[in-house]
């Protein structure tokens, strides 16, 4: 069971605000998802290695060769705010 505190914590890490009246709904939905995933545990997977990738690909590289970057105006087009070629964001304190 996922407790409300945990839902709150997940929301915080994702920088989401959850209204108090939405809490019950989210907790219920979280639990439904987790219960559904629990079904996997009914299978015997002791002989299976964890699959981190669905393809068998390994060692995909690029050579260290410079390719043209994007036009800055195009890159900045989607930004809500920009100035002097930089993205401008609300003031943040040092991490």
């Amino acid at each position, binding site marked *: 069971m996922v407790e409300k505190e945990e839902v709150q914590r997940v929301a915080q890490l994702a920088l989401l605000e959850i209204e108090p009246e939405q809490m019950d709904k989210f907790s219920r939905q979280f639990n439904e998802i987790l219960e559904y995933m629990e079904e996997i545990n009914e299978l015997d997977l002791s002989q299976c290695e964890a699959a*981190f990738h669905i*393809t068998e690909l390994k*060692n995909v*590289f690029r050579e*260290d*060769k*410079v*390719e043209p*970057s994007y036009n800055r105006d195009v890159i900045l087009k989607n930004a809500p705010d920009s100035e002097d070629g930089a993205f401008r964001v609300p003031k943040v304190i040092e*991490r």
Partner: protein
Amino acid sequence: MEYEAVIGLEVHIQLLTKTKIFCGCSTDFGAPPNTHVCPVCMGMPGVLPVLNKKVVEYAIKLGLALNCRINKFSRFARKNYFYPDLPKGYQISQYELPILEGGAVEIFINGGYKKIALERIHMEEDAGKTVHKPDGSYVDFNRAGVPLLEIVSKPVMHSPEEAGEYLKSLRRIVRYLGICDGNMEEGSLRCDANVSVRIKGEDKLGTKTELKNMNSFKHVEKALEYEIERQIDVLKEGGKVIQQTRLWDEKSGITKPMRSKEESFEYRYFPDPDLVPLIIDDKWIDDVRKTLPELPKEKLERFIEEYGIKPEDARVLVEERELAEYFERAAKESKEPQSVANWILSELLGYLNRDGKEIKDTLIKPEQIGKLVELVEKGIISGKIAKTVFKEMYNSGDDPEKIVKEKGLIQITDRGEIEKLVEEVLESNPKAVEQYKAGKKNTIGFFVGQIMKKTKGKANPKIVNELLVKKLEEK
């Protein structure tokens, strides 16, 4: 009660690749903001990062130089957090299965060698750069995606000096390998420190703080000194050290707790599904091994052994690979490697320091230093004149032989000629001769000076002295 500090360092080095770690954007420093960016390093939906092979090669290089275990199988992970300089909302890094584990950085301290054990070294991408202005924070993503290696030491250092030596040694090695320029002021080598104190003899580690914002070797040592003292004071007063991140403030010379939200970071690492596993086979490792240069410590030992120069001089010479190679080329031109070392260390470095230049900037070719030393050794010029010649070489880059010939600086070693000069000087200074005869032996300095004046310093001082004494005694 005696306390002991325990220090572990986390060093980030920016790799000298031409392009970023997962895209073809240039890593050149100093471009206008956001001109070296593309959908991959900006984290736009639907793009795929592809690993720069050179980054792996450089990591293997460092692994070989520091005797790390090179993991045959390694993978990338996402480190999740929000900050404006991180376009994707996560940083691609390595978590479990980093490319390198173990190994050590050897340092020279208190006249001996000591190995500082490493925990791990992993590959990751750099974040962008934020400039804080009154009307907001300005973000430039040119640096986002520049390849980094993070080198994590075990908590095995016990003094700021040890930490400083560790950093210097590590910097020297990455510069020899040519994988990082090691410039702390410009941020291509960055250092965070974990530090705690405990009562000496105890095994359990004390509560640590993490120190950030130290932009030079000097500041790393100063920050550690301050923080160790601060923690000891807290404990002595019966208090407890709080686990926190503290920023070094170089103006006030103290560390301050960082003003951040109360939340502790939880990075929720998970394997990056966009990047496939990395397999490194023995052949690849062997191929990289063949490209390894001679490392500083090996070079140091060889210089002492092969050229018979003083260990303390050899230590300075191997500090920079370019300087070491310069010395070696010069030494091969001469039979007196120690003299060559002296000229480079005192005269050449003296001039270069004065002018704020580096060894690669000098007009003097190393072979010319060797030739200069030979001119002195063969008695063609005196040591004093050699300094004049050196100055000329430094300014013009001309061959010492050419300067000596053109300026007529060849030493006078002809005994007959010097004898004549000695007689002249004695005859024209009868008073001084009397003083000498009366027992004032140091009058000889005056005569030497007179002869040097007449010959513009070119007379062989040994012969001058010898003949002076002989003539004076005869009188």
